[in-house]
């Protein structure tokens, strides 16, 4: 499935993602890592740790509805893989991001901006394995 190249919208969206990361640091002094936010929200050790993450999750969940209210249509989501792959992929994403302590937002956006040594290793590793996985599933196995 071909998707349209959207450099301006993507760059603008990236600026907003960065703005959210900066605001969270300015307000709560925290890294905007989606892995830690989800994991700390679901498996909270204390109420104090849970509350601000729950607020972030609520904000993230209502964002597409705000888009719907202003533009009259839901954002485009095309899932070109089977439900089985979504489940297998989801499991592996959950295990991997927990072991590696971060994902695209935590290591990618925040970690690279902090020039974190761990993130400078993590990002090329997950970008490479993602590209290899897509190559194998689309061009070797032809799924």
């Amino acid at each position, binding site marked *: 499935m071909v998707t349209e190249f959207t450099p301006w*919208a993507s760059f603008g969206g990236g600026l907003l993602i960065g703005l959210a990361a900066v605001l*969270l640091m300015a307000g709560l002094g925290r890294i905007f890592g*989606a892995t830690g936010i989800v994991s700390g929200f679901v498996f909270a050790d204390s109420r104090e740790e849970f509350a601000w993450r729950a607020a972030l999750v609520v904000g993230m969940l209502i964002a597409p509805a705000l888009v719907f209210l202003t533009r009259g249509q839901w954002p485009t989501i095309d899932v070109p893989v089977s439900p089985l792959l979504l489940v297998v992929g989801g499991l592996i994403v959950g295990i991997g991001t927990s072991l590696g302590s971060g994902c695209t937002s935590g290591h990618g956006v925040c970690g690279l901006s902090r020039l974190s040594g761990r993130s400078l290793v993590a990002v090329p590793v997950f970008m490479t*394995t993602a590209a290899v996985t897509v190559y194998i599933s689309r061009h070797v196995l032809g799924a």
Partner: protein
Amino acid sequence: MKFLFAIVTGIIFGLGITLSGMINPAKVLNFFDLAGSWDPSLAFVMGGAVVMTFFGYRLVWRRAKPLFSSRFHHPSSSAVDKRLIIGSALFGIGWGLAGFCPGAALPALGTGRWDVVLFVFAMVVGMGLARVLERWLNASRLIETADS
């Protein structure tokens, strides 16, 4: 006030994920499909986000402390270890299979689509499994140390 601030921050993040196209797995997977229907858009998402965060962080860190907290919480670990590499490698594999990463999946979940629910549920189960595994590994390491 602190929580209102966090909700608004979450909304801005979610709008960024939506506008950028990160919310769409077809677009994400095409970014990685260099040999096929390549869509370089995601490089622009990452570029915009890192430029904003890199300079924004440096402005914020000039202050003594955040608005609603007593200090800046920086990740304490700096070790590049096996866990980091294996975990990141696995994350990339899962991302390449499903097309969702955690930060894109949450705003996508807000559309109420059943397939996103399926992905997020599996992801949370995976996070739980990793926690159990780590607790078990830590416990067995403690026993080993106690034995020796």
